[in-house]
């Protein structure tokens, strides 16, 4: 612990010592006050149905809905169905809970470029766009849209307040005019070229704070919201679950004799079960047994199977990747967010907090290679744990990726960092220029950074302060995007019994999804995947303190942690959702998998139970501070 404390103090000094901490704390309480004030204005009835609408904003939103309705209605009148549906198909939606920005987005899409007009009036010189406009995302762009220039239509002048007094327009002009009168307060405003899709992604996410911020105890509030999908209603299955839960309770109460008896009973019951339930029960029983028989807590905990080999871990992880879609979904969704964040930049840098076998990166490299205008120059920093046998797996992975990158002609550089904990990382390590950087020209091109963390952050919760340190490091690197994927479960709060119950539900569902129709890959993949999950089960159930690294938390809890640390959500949109859903249908074939959107994050689950959540973040504008600059 000592070295870490020193490090934090050192950091504090670098940033102005106590002053920085004080200011940060103040900023946070201000934000909290603002959040609470906003919360009280939220329409409760709509909130209960999943929509965040401020009462004070209600009339305004109603107006916008009307505008959108009319804008769409007139397209039908003009028989422009095909055009309308093309627009509808191309529109990317974000965060539907925030009706206000959702409708704004639709309006701005409908406000998009006119098609080449049938009989075009002479184009006028474009007037500069008023920066005070309500919809800042409709920015004039430099994107070359060759045939469409700004066009001013001869609309009757109207006072802004009367923008809804619409005259029926001649059909040929409707398609172009549609967006013009939708919300412009300046009747002379020119239709602008479409902002490139990329710049839209930059828009500030102005959704009201999520409802979970109204609770103080994120852990218990989320624990109560995690669902149960009950798939086994056979008599024996029920007895088995009953015995497992009773055993957990006995363990919690210290009644080790009863617990021991129950473990034996569970083993017998499990043997007569089939399928997923048998396997899950076996792992939980084993974990309970370890917990029961561990020596008195004196710093040493029995913990879990003694295969501490990193290579073994990575191998299990790779089998899990193959046998079910959860990691593929994670990689795909994170890559989508990274790709969008990287749009327009010629030098990009990904920091991967859990490099392992680099399974995520070939797909991203491929996507970058296919970028219009050619791929950027790509740098990858891979973080991995120390290898006991001193092998350089981390470098090997980099080498393989470099070879792949060469075949698809992407300029690729790699650096691997060994760290036993992410908390050992310093910003300078992640930012430091490669020694083989060439001279001045490259230094002028800005490099954008994406930090990617798949199933890594929860481990940091095992040591106090570690997560805060890492989030600070990430902030200092000023990433354009931070992608976070975590198990969608609360295995880190409440009592042991509550944790056990949550874990039993979670892993039962997980195992069930891998049984039968839900699996891909081979027999071996499945067996290894079960072992991979089994080790997690063991850690959740049998371990405590620093040993218990599988401290999963649900995405609402991560949201609280991340927003508290100065990050804001970058909502993942309907395009990523669609593609994830379609890929699932292709690769998983199983109809039980479901992608869901919640507050800007995407989750993949089995039937109605989300099991893994992917979200994207960036440093919040308010927290953007010169003291954090590189």
């Amino acid at each position, binding site marked *: 612990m000592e070295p870490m404390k020193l490090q934090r103090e050192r950091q504090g000094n670098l940033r102005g010592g106590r002053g920085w901490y004080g200011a940060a704390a103040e900023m946070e309480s201000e934000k909290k006050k603002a959040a609470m004030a906003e919360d009280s204005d939220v*329409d409760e*009835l*709509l909130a*209960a*149905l*999943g*929509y965040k*609408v401020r009462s004070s904003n*209600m*009339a305004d*939103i*109603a107006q916008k*809905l*009307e505008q959108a*309705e*009319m804008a*769409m*209605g*007139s397209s039908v*009148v003009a028989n422009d*169905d095909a055009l309308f*549906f093309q627009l*509808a198909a191309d*529109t990317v*939606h974000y965060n*539907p*809970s925030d*009706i206000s920005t959702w*409708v704004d987005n*639709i309006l701005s899409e409908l406000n998009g470029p006119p098609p080449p007009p049938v009989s075009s009036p002479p184009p006028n010189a474009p007037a500069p766009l008023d920066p005070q406009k309500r919809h800042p995302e409709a920015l004039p762009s430099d994107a070359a849209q060759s045939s469409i220039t700004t066009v001013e239509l001869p609309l009757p002048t109207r006072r802004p307040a009367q923008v809804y007094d*619409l005259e*029926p*327009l001649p059909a040929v002009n409707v398609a172009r005019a549609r967006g013009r009168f939708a919300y412009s307060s300046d009747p002379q405003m020119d239709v602008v070229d479409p902002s490139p899709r990329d710049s839209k992604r930059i828009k500030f996410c102005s959704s009201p704070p999520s409802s979970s911020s109204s609770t103080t105890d994120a852990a218990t509030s989320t*624990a*109560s*919201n*995690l*669902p*149960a*999908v*009950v*798939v086994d*209603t056979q008599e024996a299955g*029920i007895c088995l*679950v*009953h015995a497992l*839960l009773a055993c957990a309770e006995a363990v919690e109460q210290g009644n080790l004799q009863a617990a021991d008896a129950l473990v034996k009973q569970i083993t017998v019951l499990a043997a007569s079960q089939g399928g997923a339930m048998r396997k899950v029960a076996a792992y939980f029983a084993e974990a309970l047994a370890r917990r029961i028989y561990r020596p008195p807590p004196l710093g040493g905990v029995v913990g879990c199977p003694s295969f501490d080999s990193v290579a073994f871990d990575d191998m299990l992880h790779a089998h899990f990747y193959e046998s079910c879609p959860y990691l593929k979904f994670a990689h795909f969704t994170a890559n989508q967010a990274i790709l969008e964040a990287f749009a327009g930049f010629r030098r990009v840098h990904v920091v991967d907090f859990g490099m392992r076998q680099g399974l995520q990166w070939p797909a991203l490299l491929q996507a970058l290679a296919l970028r219009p205008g050619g791929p950027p120059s790509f740098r990858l920093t891979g973080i991995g744990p120390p290898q006991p046998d001193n092998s350089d797996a981390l470098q090997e992975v980099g080498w393989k990726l470099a070879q792949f990158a060469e075949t698809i002609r992407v300029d690729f550089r790699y650096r691997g960092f060994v760290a036993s904990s992410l908390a050992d990382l310093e910003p300078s390590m992640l930012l430091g220029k490669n020694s083989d950087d060439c001279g001045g020209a490259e230094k002028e091109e800005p490099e954008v950074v994406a930090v990617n963390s798949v199933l890594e952050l929860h481990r940091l919760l095992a040591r106090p302060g570690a997560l805060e340190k890492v989030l600070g490091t990430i902030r200092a690197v000023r990433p354009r995007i931070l992608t976070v994927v975590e198990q969608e479960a609360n295995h880190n709060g409440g009592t042991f019994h*509550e944790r056990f*119950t949550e874990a039993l539900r979670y892993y039962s569902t997980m195992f069930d999804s891998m049984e039968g129709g839900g699996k891909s890959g081979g027999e071996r993949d499945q067996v290894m995947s079960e072992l991979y999950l089994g080790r997690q089960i063991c850690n959740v159930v049998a371990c405590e303190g620093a040993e218990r690294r599988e401290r999963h938390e649900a995405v609402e809890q991560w949201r609280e942690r991340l927003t508290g640390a100065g990050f804001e959500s970058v909502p993942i949109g*309907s395009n990523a*959702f669609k593609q994830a*859903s379609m890929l699932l249908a292709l690769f998983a074939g199983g109809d039980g998998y*479901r992608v*869901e*959107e*919640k507050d800007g994050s995407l989750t993949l689950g089995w*039937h*109605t*139970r*989300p099991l893994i959540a992917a979200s994207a973040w960036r440093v919040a504008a308010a927290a953007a501070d010169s003291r954090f600059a590189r």
Partner: protein
Amino acid sequence: MAGGNEINANESKMAVPLNTWVLISNFKLAYNLLRRPDGTFDRHLAEFLDRKVPANVTPVNGIISFDVLIDRPNNLVARIYRPAPATAAGSIPIFTDLYQPPSSDTFPVIIFFHGGSFAHSSSNSAIYDSLCRRFVSLCDAVVISVNYRRAPEYKYPCAYDDGWAALKWASAEPWLRSGKEGKLRVFLAGDSSGGNIAHHVAVRAAESGIEIAGNILLNSMFGGNRRTESEQRLDGKYFVTIQDRDWYWKAFLPEGADRDHPACNPFGPNGVRLEGLAFPKSLVIVAGLDLVQDWQLAYAEGLKTAGHFVKVVYREQATIGFYLLPNTNHFYEVMEEIKEFVRFNL
């Protein structure tokens, strides 16, 4: 017409509270984006936009919910809502508690089919989760919300088959039985397309000798080839258009069928005679600003003519979706009607 649209907006705005107007208009806008003119449906966008809630075995207002896989091959899931089982205060009910009868007295089981014109929504949609919880506390019932297969991917009769599967499943669950005779006291309920499904499942139940205590149809979805007076009068006025109704029927009904298909028009030229069938008593709730009302009233007439008990509750000033938000008299008074109907026919 643009001007016409504006008048409609004002009319509908005057008929419902503002937050209701925003909710239903929001759906309307979203749904317009999802229905393609060629009859296909943007399912991915629909799932993205739909606000869903997880099941929750931690009591909320004394009610818990959990999902059950009723039929694995069809991935048929249903969400069960029930009063929280009696466990130690504050503790999460364990698995086995879920399957205990909620009461030693008789209690109703309501099999609920959510609306969405056969194409939209799910049993875990937030609007329906809320409604089902309301039914539990209203009637001290166990509510089973069926996640039936939807159009246009799954046309007639898939939704009815799934409803039937749910009924059979409920009939086989011992913990759902109550009373001296230890029998299942089941009501079929639904709004919009769900009401239509409730009717057709009830017919099948009656034909198979399964006793249904009652049917509850809320703004149920029926239609026919001819344009009724209410459809013409109210077209586009209160969130709904004839055009969208037509689209949904085309999506649900078999290829080549028209709206006089018995699924759509059960008392029309192709309807099944219900005389002499042990068809349950029905509570038919009709909103006076719903353009489908003439079909709903014709449905009620059809039941009466066939000798079956119907109570029609006609809410003159109500629009579609009035039962989604507890902010009008329509909501509370209709809930009372439902409560009385269930209590009376239990």
